[in-house]
């Protein structure tokens, strides 16, 4: 991460691609870009001084530096709406409010939509696998790939902060894999996945597994263009994890409870974990498996078949509509 501007995005590396550049705008309006490789770069010194940050009685948060005008506002009211924007007479001040109402994740969501269309066009079931580090995602994947590789086209995108160890484990099964290293980033985003899609041989009519960075917090917010998020929880973790990390279990369509072979040796209440998860997400589907022994794999493979069938059917329907339109024309 650039220690001055804090940008982590410039550190993403996708196997086979040069490190990408980091573009930013300076106060004078000039834009420039540069790679981050092996260097930090200079920014103008921060002149704003320490800002300060407080919460108003109505619950809104508010921070500001002390270097600019700060009209007096009685406690408990918000600044905007009373400040120069609403009250100012034209010509007296150049300040004005611009209404934006743009979603902060709008850009990611636009890339995700493009990924989703691209994948739908080739009838690919894309799954975003999310969990804590160490839940057994990669073991689950290697066993799944070995079981499916003679039946369906498959590919894997691996997300990790560093190393290509996981992609190597996947390639050992004979299935193509591409590693994305997020550097200081804590999650994959739709732009990274879009770049990876352009580079990997896409498994048309098959399944693309995207193994996200092991993290139960951040990946919940970033749509990658997947058909579904699959959250993996293992019995060596706490049964209360769905309540501790509710965003992720809310975003998931399926929860897999892994390492069931270790259940006799640990204090993990499966029913309680499922009940907690369904508090967050009443529609959540649940499977219990052991990736090392293979327990529960029939149900998991059947789930994948059903989902892939649905994706293919959607594509067939869309092609048939197009054919009918062309024949009718």
């Amino acid at each position, binding site marked *: 991460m650039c220690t*001055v*501007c*804090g*940008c*982590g*995005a410039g550190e993403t590396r996708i196997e086979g691609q040069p490190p990408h550049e980091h573009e*930013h*705008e*300076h*106060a004078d*309006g000039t834009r420039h870009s540069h790679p981050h490789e092996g260097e930090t770069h200079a920014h*103008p010194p*921060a*002149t*704003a001084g320490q*800002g300060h*940050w407080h919460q108003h009685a109505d*619950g*809104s*948060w*508010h*921070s*500001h*530096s002390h*270097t*600019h005008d700060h009209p007096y506002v009685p406690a408990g009211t918000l*600044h*905007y709406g009373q*400040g*120069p*924007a609403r009250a100012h007479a034209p010509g007296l*001040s*150049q*300040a004005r*409010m*611009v*209404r*934006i*109402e*743009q*979603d*902060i*994740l*709008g*850009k990611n969501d636009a890339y995700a939509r493009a990924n989703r269309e691209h994948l739908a066009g080739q009838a690919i079931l894309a799954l975003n696998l999310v969990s804590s580090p160490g839940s057994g995602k990669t073991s689950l994947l290697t066993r799944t790939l070995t079981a499916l590789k003679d039946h369906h086209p498959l590919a894997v995108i691996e997300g990790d902060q560093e190393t290509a160890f996981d992609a190597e484990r996947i390639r050992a099964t004979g299935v193509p894999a591409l590693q994305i290293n997020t550097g200081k*980033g804590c*999650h994959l*985003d739709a732009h990274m996945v879009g770049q990876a899609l352009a580079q990997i041989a896409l498994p048309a009519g098959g399944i693309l597994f995207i193994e996200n960075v092991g993290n139960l*917090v*951040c990946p919940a*917010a*970033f749509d990658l263009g997947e058909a579904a998020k699959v959250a993996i929880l293992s019995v060596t973790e706490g049964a209360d994890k769905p309540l501790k990390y*509710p*965003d992720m279990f*809310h975003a998931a369509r399926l929860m897999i409870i892994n390492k069931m072979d270790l259940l006799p040796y640990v204090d993990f209440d499966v029913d309680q974990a499922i009940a*907690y998860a*369904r*508090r*967050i997400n*009443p529609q959540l589907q649940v499977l219990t498996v052991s990736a090392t022994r293979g327990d529960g794999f029939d149900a998991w493979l059947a789930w994948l078949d059903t989902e892939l069938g649905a994706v293919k059917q959607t594509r067939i329907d869309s092609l048939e509509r197009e054919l009918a339109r062309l024949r009718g024309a």
Partner: protein
Amino acid sequence: MHEMSLAEGVLQIIEETARREGARRVKQVVLEIGRLSSVEPSALAFCFDVVTRGSVAEGAELVIDEIQGSGWCMPCGKTVALGERYAPCPHCGRFQIQPTGGTDMQVREIEIE
């Protein structure tokens, strides 16, 4: 720390708007953050200060308006207030609630000159 990515998203929106409007400086940024969205306002504010350094929004005042959460309670068949994703319905005490409000985060407006 996905708040860093979100702060970068906010900065991109601000920079695009400032450029389009020919702004010299951004004085204030108003965000709407839903209580059920996956963002922590104080962490986002910290990251905002960091990512805006050297940008057109350096030193801008940040106002975060938190939007109350709400959800559709299936047993009650009505919309209820929701403080947290894992909270029970305040009327029936059950958990079959689909969040419907306070899940978004957006840049509402900016003040420029």
